[in-house]
């Protein structure tokens, strides 16, 4: 036991004396949360639009004002003719043009009917889609406001309630994703690299010719990363609750316990990689290609898994981050309890035991 503690202490010296490692370990989660929280967002805000108002009447100006006043749009330009539409899209000045037909007010009042054309720049399909949806919603609101005093036969109103995330904040989605990414990076990649470094530096050779059990060497290397990862969980949770205002609806104990389970899975993977890799570069490469990419692509964090073709959907099941991502989303956002996530917990436990067994069996007690 004294050996073990001494080894863990030594490992902390390594970490604390290497500024780069320290930064990756403790700085990265903060940077990622801040980046995803404030810079990299797929929410649409203050999009620049142009208006081609053929009507120039009362109602049309009210509508334009409403669009401009909403937080989604910023009316940048009022254009005068159809010929101007194409050029302003090409210059990239606006994302959407709203065209109001002549006699807009007349048509509304006398024929009870009019139409508005929305032209969007669909070179980014998602943004175009979102913009037209927002605009349609705003126009519908406007329509309701003018029709509220009249009786219209057969109207169906949709009442939409966004459960768990009423404001549709992106942070609700990426906080669980960032947690999975950071833990994977810290636990898997850093652990694998530090073990392989001992091989590269020749210190593993000396360690092997000692009474310390090789398995114990490897375990001792993993402990500091386990501790540092719990600090990372705390940092991420504090930042998301107090800076990004993402609530923790479920039990925080359950969330932390599940995170520790995921950390153990990642550590086992790190140990597995280290037993195969002979150089730090190889260890890093395997970690990035075999783990990091699938985590980003197939955990559901960036792209919805439901829309993927069957082979990818099947493959996503062996990506540990997918299950962890579901757990964090479930507990943190939906407030699920342990019965809501037992399946995921079971799968992660199984994965951990599987990887750990292989890693320990693969561990070489000699140099070759």
């Amino acid at each position: 036991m004294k050996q073990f503690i001494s080894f863990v202490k030594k490992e902390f010296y390594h970490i604390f004396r290497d500024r780069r490692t320290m930064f990756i370990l403790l700085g990265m989660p903060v940077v990622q949360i801040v980046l995803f929280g404030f810079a990299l967002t797929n929410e649409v805000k203050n999009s620049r639009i142009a208006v081609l108002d053929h009507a120039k009447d009362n109602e049309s100006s009210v509508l334009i004002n409403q669009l401009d006043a909403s937080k989604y749009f910023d009316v940048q330009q009022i254009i005068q003719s159809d010929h101007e539409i194409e050029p302003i899209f090409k210059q990239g000045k606006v994302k959407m043009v709203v065209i109001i037909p002549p006699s807009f007010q007349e048509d509304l009042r006398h024929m009870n009917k009019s139409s508005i054309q929305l032209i969007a720049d669909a070179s980014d399909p998602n943004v175009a889609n979102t913009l037209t949806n927002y605009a349609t919603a705003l126009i519908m609101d406007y329509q309701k406001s003018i029709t509220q005093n009249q009786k219209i036969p057969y109207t169906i109103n949709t009442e939409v309630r966004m459960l768990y995330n009423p404001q549709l904040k992106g942070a609700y989605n990426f906080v669980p994703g960032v947690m999975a990414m950071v833990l994977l990076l810290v636990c898997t990649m850093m652990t694998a690299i530090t073990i392989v470094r001992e091989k590269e530096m020749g210190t593993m050779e000396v360690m092997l010719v000692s009474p310390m059990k090789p398995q114990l060497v490897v375990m001792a290397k993993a402990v500091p990363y386990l501790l540092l990862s719990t600090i990372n969980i705390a940092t991420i949770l504090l930042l998301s609750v107090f800076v990004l205002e993402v609530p923790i609806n479920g039990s925080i104990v359950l969330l932390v316990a599940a995170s520790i389970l995921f950390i153990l899975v990642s550590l086992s993977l790190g140990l597995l990689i280290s037993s195969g890799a002979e150089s730090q570069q190889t260890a890093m490469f395997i970690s990035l290609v075999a783990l990091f990419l699938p985590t980003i692509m197939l955990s559901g964090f960036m792209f919805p898994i439901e829309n993927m073709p069957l082979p990818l959907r099947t493959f996503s099941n062996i990506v540990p981050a997918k299950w962890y991502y579901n757990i964090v989303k479930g507990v943190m956002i939906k407030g699920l309890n342990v019965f809501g996530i037992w399946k995921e917990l079971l799968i992660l436990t199984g994965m951990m035991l599987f990887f750990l067994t292989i890693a320990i069996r693969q561990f070489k007690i000699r140099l070759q």
Partner: protein
Amino acid sequence: MNTIINQEGNYNPPPLGDGGMDAVVVKNISKTYGKKKEVQALNNISFSVNPGELFGIIGPDGAGKTSLFRILTTLLLADEGAATVDGFDVVKDYKAIRKRVGYMPGRFSLYQDLTVEENLNFFATIFNTSIEENYDLIKDIYVQIEPFKKRKAGKLSGGMKQKLALSCALIHRPSVLFLDEPTTGVDAVSRKEFWEMLRRLKDQGITILVSTPYMDEAGLCDRVALIQKGKIMSIDSPEAIVNAFPYPLLAVKSVNMLPLLNELKLYDGLKDAYVFGEYHHAVLKNDNAVTGLKEYLEAKNFSVEINPVRPNIEDCFMMLMKSVSSEAQKQDV
């Protein structure tokens, strides 16, 4: 010819002792590398080391020294043969061996970002001991690096690094100490100091196996094994190896050294000639050739200085290498 080398140019090992007595016993060890076993690192090696002996394994780079050390320290498995350290089998009882030997690899293998003190403390704990417990053993060595105990190991000079590595390898009072090329890349003064330390350790009863490519260090060992291309050419005390040198040896010097060497090689009575410091060493076939040499060279207009010299290990190594390779050539034909 030489008694040590038999007809095939192989070394014939003495029969192995009763095992329990010898600190290290190596029996017919062979080791190859590569998928097709194309690199022969060790070829049927056998020897044994007495307890408390300072045993040198002398040979050039690539002779197989490191492979041999790694097999004995249980880090590699031999293809064939068996070996024991302190009576324990290197394959079966590897755990017991790892508890009782000290090993210093050829490359500096301590933690560079830990200080001198931290390294030593760490290795002491790993071996279930403390610096205080065995301080008397490492005291002579450690006092020399103690002034730098707060310095990172990576920032030490070559000689200091070796002293620290030796301290770490000794901290658990090993019964057998394996030092793989401890003096390679270390300055002459530190090398001398290092060997003095080894002598003192030997006095403490520790069996020491040390490998080195420097022939001049052979004389500091109790016994040496001369190894070349995975084969042991000779095992004996340095004196016995030197005494067994069967030919007259002369040191020859002149103003023009390079033409002199070429001319020497054309001499009938010559066995071998090579550069040796500021002299050429000429190995002659017999005593008649010695007297003829001066005449021969003067006839070629060389004003030469010729002195008979006592062979040293390097001369023996050159001679053994030549006879082994000529035997091998004969076999090939």
